[in-house]
Every structure is written in C-alpha cells, then in structure tokens.
C-alpha cells in the first residue's frame, strides 16, 4: 500500500477567520454558507479544533457502511462517497472519530471532503499557513522500496536528524557508492564502525577530517579510468567541510571532480563536545564560546559555506532542510545527476538536540522555524541558471520564534538579537540580490 497526500492543520497559525470554510462551501455547493463546508474549524478555548476527513488508511466509516457506498481509492487515497448506493443510515458518522463525515441537512445526505481532486480550495484560501496540503507521502511511495543502506541501530543522539539525512540520502544514491564520513557525528553514530563491526552496507571509510574531497577524488578518478560508474559521496560535518576540510574541498570543486559532497551542518563540533566552528552563528553558546561574566557566546558571524561553494562555480550547489523533505529530495536528485558531470555540493541544516539545547521531539520544528524566519534560506544554483530561491523570503516569521526555541541562545541580550536580525536581513538581501541578478541575466 502506498502513502497519500493529506491536508495538515496547525492550530497555532489559525486565527479563526473561516476563510477555509467559506472557500470549501463555495467550491462544493456554490453557497458561501459555512454550514455547507466539508472542513469545520471550531474554536476550543484558546485554540482551534479541526473536523475534517483524514482519508484514513483503515477507515471506520467504510467498515461501518452496510451499502458499500464508501470506498477508499487506491490511487489517490481519497475515501469517496457514492450517492447512488447510500441508504442514509448514518452509521459512517458514528464510526468517524474526526467529525470528517457528517449529515448535511441542505444536501439531505452525508458529506465529506474529497480533497478537491488534489487541489483543495480550503488550503488555497488559508493565508495564515494553518492549512497545508502535504504531498511528502510521495517520498515514501518513490523510495520506500529502496534498500536502506545503513543497518538498524545507529547510535545517534535522541531526536537527531542526521540519521534521517544519512538513511534518506544514501538509499536514493544507491549501492554503487563509496561513502566517506570524516570524523564527526556521522561516523560517531557507528556508520564506519568499531572493532570489526560496521553500520553501513556500502564501502565506507573514515577519511581524515582534512582530506575527504581529496580521497574521494582518487577513488572516483581510478574507477572512471577503469570505466566503472561508482558514486563518490561524502557525508561530512561542517567542521570537516568549512574549517579544516575546506582546502581539499575547494581544490576538488575547482577541479570539477565528479563528487557528491553533502555537508550536515550542525553549526559546530557537536560530536566532540559542542565546540565552535566556522559555521557557528553569532551569539551562539558553544563549549569554546561559553557564556559567563564577560563571554556572551560567539562574537563573529558564521561563514556562508554554500555561497562559497557557489563561487567555485560548482556543477550544482543547494541548501536544504529536513523540515522540507520534498525540496530536499528534489535537490538530492539534481545533485546526484550533477555529480556525474562535476562537483555537486548539498548543504543540509541539522539542528543538534544535544548541542543546541532543545527537546529531542522538536528537531523538525526547529529546522522549520530556521527556514520560516529566514535564518536559513533554501536555494539552489547551477552555472547555467544561476541562483534560484526554493521558497519565497517574504514575510518571515519573527526571528525570536527561532532563537527562543534554542537553549544556546538563552543568554542573548537585546543588542545581540539586534545583531542577528541585521545579519539575517543582510543575508536575505544578498541571496535575493543573487536570485534577482539571475533573473535579470536570464531576461
């Protein structure tokens, strides 16, 4: 069975404007009366509850129906109601725990959401971001059958998204791969292994922290010489990429080596005790930029590594976030393809539950806040089309929403927050300028 698209609701973004219900009622009945809406958003104290068909995988409404009037569509996953078979017994409404199928007096029978054929009117009407149409299930459908090239039981910290990055990227890249994981969290969780045991099913090795791109160069060049198509892939931390690993990275990029280099950026040396790296942002606490009577965290801004790689004119450069997996997958595909022609660089942000000090359940939400506040920007570059924004930078959420989610910024004073705001603004203008420059050049 495949996975399906779905409508997701974030009550914290909802202000009860009813636009979704108006849109639904209009789309389905021609009347704007929200009584006819298939989606019902109901105030519940300080928050809102959603009554909407979840298009369940094991739908009780279908099981309860004695007339076979309800059926789940195998292709779309939508539970369809067939009026010609319905006997109006309403047993379906009893089965549904979500208020997703209800009797509508005007219609004279039950009504439910049909996802508008994959383009739901309610989502389009919501300008608060409370409703989103999630299509990420495609990822499962497309790669779910591909072999996970890491063994179960890698020993990452609780809630870390690096393991997610490793498993998702490598299963897509495939088994004809040699994987380099320089010292850091990636091998730290057992991917290369310990005393004779390994966590990886493809050839894997520890390069030095300094020479990942160079070792991959030798591997790739020799296999090419032999006429063999082997992917040379790095999963490296930001220290092994931006700091001590940068010389070999820059050299390989300049030479256009056919390598896919993935930087898992957790903004510091998190594996070895949360020390500062060149990618640590201004103000952040680390164990070498501690907070005390005088110290207030890092006193310099982060090095913008993906931009540096863009300036190498790599075959492909992109930033990605695990809060936006469809985008990540699309970029991964383009990076894999580009690495067959030249150097491909993928920079994936990896909030560190341990080193950034936030609850382990919140990793993806922290990643999302980083993007939605423009602290992290998602874009991609290739030499022909220039830089393209992956999502608009307009109307970011307030930076406080991101900073307050992280213990490493707990000590920030107002002027430090001001500095970070100014840095984000400057970074946004820089990227926007590059993206608009692209459009001008293309026009």
């Amino acid at each position, binding site marked *: 069975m495949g996975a399906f698209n779905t409508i997701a609701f974030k009550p914290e973004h909802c202000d009860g404007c009813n636009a979704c219900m108006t849109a639904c009622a209009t789309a389905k009945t021609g009347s704007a009366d929200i009584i006819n809406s298939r989606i019902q958003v109901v105030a519940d104290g300080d928050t809102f509850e959603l009554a909407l068909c979840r298009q369940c995988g094991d739908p009780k409404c279908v099981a309860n129906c004695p007339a076979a009037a309800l059926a789940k569509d195998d292709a779309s996953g939508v539970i369809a109601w067939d009026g010609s078979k319905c006997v109006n017994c309403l047993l379906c409404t009893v089965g549904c725990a979500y208020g997703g199928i209800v009797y509508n007096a005007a219609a004279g029978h039950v009504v439910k959401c049909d996802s508008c054929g994959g383009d739901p009117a309610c989502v389009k009407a919501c300008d608060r971001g409370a409703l989103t149409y999630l299509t990420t299930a495609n990822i499962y459908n497309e790669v779910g059958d591909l072999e996970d090239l890491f063994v179960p039981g890698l020993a990452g910290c609780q809630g870390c998204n690096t393991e997610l990055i490793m498993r998702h990227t490598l299963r897509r890249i495939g088994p004809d791969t040699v994987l380099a994981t320089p010292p850091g969290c990636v091998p730290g969780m057992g991917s*290369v292994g*310990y*005393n004779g045991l390994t966590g990886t099913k493809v050839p894997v090795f520890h390069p030095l922290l*300094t020479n990942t791109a160079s070792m991959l160069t*030798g591997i790739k060049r020799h296999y090419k010489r032999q006429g063999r198509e*082997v992917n040379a892939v790095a999963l490296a931390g930001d220290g092994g990429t931006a700091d001590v690993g940068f*010389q070999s990275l820059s050299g390989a990029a300049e030479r256009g080596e056919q390598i896919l280099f993935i930087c898992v950026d957790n903004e510091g040396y998190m594996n070895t005790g949360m020390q500062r790296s060149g990618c640590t942002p201004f103000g952040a606490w680390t164990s070498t930029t501690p907070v005390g009577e005088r110290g207030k965290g890092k006193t310099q801004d982060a090095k913008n590594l993906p931009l540096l790689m863009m300036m190498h004119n790599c075959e492909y450069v992109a930033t990605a976030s695990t809060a936006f997996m469809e985008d990540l997958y699309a970029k991964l595909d383009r990076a894999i393809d580009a690495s067959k022609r030249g150097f491909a660089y993928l920079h994936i942000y990896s909030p560190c539950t341990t080193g950034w000090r936030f609850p382990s359940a919140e990793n993806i939400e922290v990643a999302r806040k980083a993007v939605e506040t423009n602290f992290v920007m998602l874009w991609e570059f290739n030499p022909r089309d220039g830089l393209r924004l992956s999502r608009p930078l307009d109307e970011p959420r307030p930076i406080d929403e991101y900073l307050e989610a992280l213990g490493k910024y707990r000590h920030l004073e107002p002027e430090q927050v001001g500095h970070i705001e100014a840095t984000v603004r400057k970074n946004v203008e820089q990227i926007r300028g590059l993206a608009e420059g692209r459009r001008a050049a293309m026009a």
Partner: protein
Amino acid sequence: MSAVLKPKSKAIVCDGNEAAAWAVTLARVDMVAVYPITPQSSLVEYLAKFVADGKLNAEIVDVEGEHSVLSVLHGGVLAGARAYTGTCGPGLAFMFEPYLRTPGMRMPLVMSIVTRDTLTPQSVWGGHQDAMSVREVGWVQMYCETVQEVLDTTIMAYKVAEHRDVMLPVNVCHDGNYLSYGASRVELPTQEEVDAFLPPPSTNWHAALDPSRPMAVDPLTGGSGGPGPALFVRYRKGQCAGMQHALAVIEQAHEDWARIVGRRHAPLVESYRMDDAEVALVTLGSMTGAAKDAVDEARERGTRAGLVKVKTYRPFPVQAIARALSGVRAVGVVDRSVSYGWNCGPLYQDVIGALQFAAQRPAAMSFIGGLAGADITTDHFGRVIERVQALAKDGVVGETVWLNERD
C-alpha cells in the same frame, strides 16, 4: 591500455628527477598526484609532460597542496591503483597527516623524497633532515647514491611495496641538488624488462573500497574493552612484521632486477674496501661517491680505510650493519641531518644501536655535513678518516664534528 613507451634498452643522459620519472613511467603507474616544490619540481613536470606526450598512461591529478597529493593517492590505492608522487621538506611536513596514516592502511604506494633541509632557517637546498624527521612513521626508506640507482630503485620500490609479505609504502630518497639536478649517463631498461620484473598490482582485499565487495575501511579500533586492545595490537604487530619482512624482500628484488637487467646494487648495505679495514666510514646517499674517493686516497697513503653505505634505512638492516662493521677498530658515521635531542646524526644513533649486535664492537663517532646543500668533499672525508684513525688509537669518542662549520 598499455603504456606506449617503446625505447629499446639504451643509454640516456638525465638527472635524478628525470630518471625517477622514467622509472614511474616504466612501472606503469595508474595515478600520479602533483604539487611542485623545490627541488622536486622538475620531477612532476617530467611526469606531466610524459602524460601529455602519451608516454605515460596515468591519471594525473594536479592538486592544491601536498596534503591532498597523498590523500588523492590514498583514494586511488583503495580503489586499486598503483600510485606515485614525490615531495620534500615543507611539502613533506604539510602532508604529514596522511603520510602518518599510509603505512597503517598498508598502502603500497611509492613516493620519492627529493631530500631537502628543513625550515628554519629558510632553505631550499639539499639535506636529509626532511626524510629523517619521518623515519619512525613506518614507511620503507631507501637512499640512492647515483642517478642510475634512482631509476632502478624507484622501479624496485613497487616490487617491495606490493609484496604480500610487506604491503607498505616506500620512500625512495634521492638527494636534492646533487641527484635531483646532477645529470649522468643512465641505462634505461626496456618496457619488456620492467614488465617481466614487475607484474600488475593486485588488489589488497584487506583494505579496499569497491562496491562489489563492500567493507568498512579503518573503523575505530582499540579502546579498553572488548576485542579492542588485542585487535589494535594485532594491527601494530603486523605492521612491524611487514617492515621486517621487507629486508628479505628488498634483497630478493635487487637480485631479480640484477638477473633481468644485469645491474646489481647493494640492497641493504654496501661494503666498500672493507675486507681488511681498520677504520670505516658509514654514509648515506650521494655523499658516498666522494667518500669512496677519500677511502681510495687513504688507502694510497697506507691507511686501511673502508666504507659502508646504507641503502635501506628503514627497516634498519641491523644485522647487516653489525656484520659489516664487526672487526673494524673505529667507525665514523657521516650524517646529512641532525638529531636535536642527541646532538649527533640520526644515522649515527642507529649505527651505534646496531653495533650492540656486532661480535667485536668498534668505537664510533658522529660527523655532520652537507646541511642546506653544502658540499661534502673528499677533503672533508679525508679529515673524517684522520679523526677516526685517532679514535681507533685512543678509543676516546669525541664530540660530534660539524664538517662545514668553517666553510
């Protein structure tokens, strides 16, 4: 595809850097990584030109520094390539991190050290301080006396490195200035002769990165629990055993080479006029020629002088040295580098260590010369012989003598 080198065995005139490049070409290496540094630069220029001219069918990787030079070759070797590079001095210092790792990974690659004195004072001239500074890292190190020996040894180095009982990297050391730029007549072996001597490399399946046989290369090993300590010791002991096996393999390689091309070089140590010698010089590298002349002159004066040249420095041929020097009354060891901690030459340290195993142990003194490109002339060696004669008489080991102190 085979290399297209077609000359019959013939004599050419070339310097040591070109000789090394010819050897690399004849050895059919798959991969060469390049970064220039004086006095090695012309060596990699020759290789780049040989590739451009179609003489050498190798993947040539021009990288951004010596650290990457060796790192690229690590990748190549783990994918099954026969690999080569050369460096010296500051370049060797910069590549120390991957250099340190090479023998532990049992990578049979060959790297020339076109020896150069180390900084500081700033210097671009010859001296053994660079190679000596890395003598305990686990690479096989062989020092050449002549341009011909550079060529022959560089080919033999692959036979040694890739031997299944060795599987270790080899440094072929040839003296900056004196051998790198000194031209002489060289017999060039034919491709057929080299092919008969050196079979294609076979993959070391103990450490290989090939998707057809996935494995983890160099996982964490050691720690205080589980199989860690025993596993780590096994690797270390195996590495030491490989070094010791290299002594016999080097001798066999020299024997095989002599059989095929008709040229015989001493594999571990060369004894020169040692049969009835009372005093002996111990030398390393290109200084040996002048030292042999000085021995001849001393003999003409009636002094029973001899010489022992150390060809293979790591592994140190302890027994061969002990045998060669047993019975002489006094020894002068001439180093082209220093051991700061001992205030003498490093070869001297090794020799007095080896003399513990000599049946009759002679007195030995340390002489240091030829730093930063300085010439060690027959006059210098004549003075060394005189000092060693005095040592033979009184047995009093004096302070280290610095040969170029007043030059």
